[in-house]
């Protein structure tokens, strides 16, 4: 039983979807399983969970409430590639970690791993800070377009190579608040295309 409104209650956001791929109940059940596994694996380690804003925050919030061992949480923000960001040439750190991670057991939390470009950049960055261990936990995995091989230690769901939104995944900053994951209708991101 999840505490969220029914999908239809999300109105236009829901109407923009052609299909719900993963329900809120399925997500919450899987998050609980992942939290239990992390609690077992990191017993006595006092891990620090690190996420990149913004997409990860719903997953991070749900996940940490299913982990039963002491932990710390920290966030980073980096500039994504964009028409304006590309003028700078390289990724810029917009918000760095507030806690040192050298010697710590770091679990990097992602909403989705697709090409691996961002994750690869961040993991290199974190590895240079000397953590005791550095592992990856992602809610969603779109492996079909993976450019950079990255070991994923905890994974929630595989996603198809389609335009999906919800549970932190956005299109133009919208849809992150959906507690489920759905396929975005083509006419939303391809103006002019008929349904």
């Amino acid at each position: 039983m999840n505490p969220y409104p029914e999908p239809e209650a999300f109105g236009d956001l829901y109407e923009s979807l052609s299909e719900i791929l993963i329900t809120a109940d399925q997500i919450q059940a899987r998050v609980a399983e992942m939290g239990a596994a992390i609690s077992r694996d990191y017993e006595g380690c006092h891990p620090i969970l690190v996420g990149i804003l913004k997409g990860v925050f719903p997953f991070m919030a749900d996940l940490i409430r299913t982990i039963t061992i002491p932990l710390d949480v920290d966030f980073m923000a980096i500039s994504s590639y964009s028409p304006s960001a590309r003028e700078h040439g390289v990724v810029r750190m917009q918000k760095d970690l507030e806690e040192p991670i050298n010697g710590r057991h770091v679990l990097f939390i992602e909403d989705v791993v697709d090409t691996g470009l961002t994750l690869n950049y961040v993991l290199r960055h974190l590895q240079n800070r000397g953590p005791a261990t550095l592992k990856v936990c992602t809610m969603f995995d779109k492996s079909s377009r993976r450019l950079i091989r990255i070991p994923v230690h905890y994974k929630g769901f595989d996603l198809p190579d389609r335009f999906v939104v919800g549970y932190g995944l956005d299109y133009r900053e919208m849809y992150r608040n959906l507690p489920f994951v759905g396929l975005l209708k083509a006419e939303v991101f391809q103006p002019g295309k008929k349904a």
Partner: protein
Amino acid sequence: MTSDNSYPVFSHPIEAEFARILDYYGVHWEYEPRSFPLEWDDKGNVAIAFTPDFYLPDQDLYIELTTLRPKLVTKKNRKLRRMNELYPEINIQLWKRSDLRALMLRFGIDDEAARIIGTEAQTEE
């Protein structure tokens, strides 16, 4: 990025954008570094070869980009199948038009995404 930090002459604008994305995230790449012979004539000369667009040395991965509409990709798919037969040890990814469009949309590069979509192409998918 190339070893001397200069860009080669790309044959398509999408290749330049792809290279900028790789550079942005610090991924080393080479442009068309190798051709793979696929067919030979009676005298043993290479008749058909395939030259993937990019090579990522750290990943040992070749990448071919295409903005062709799906029904026009047949020839390229045939070459890739032949590649897999002759060079099974080579890792290669074909990034189709829809993949590239999704990548451009993800990064908010609407002009490039629109160029990939094209008016006529919208009726083909």
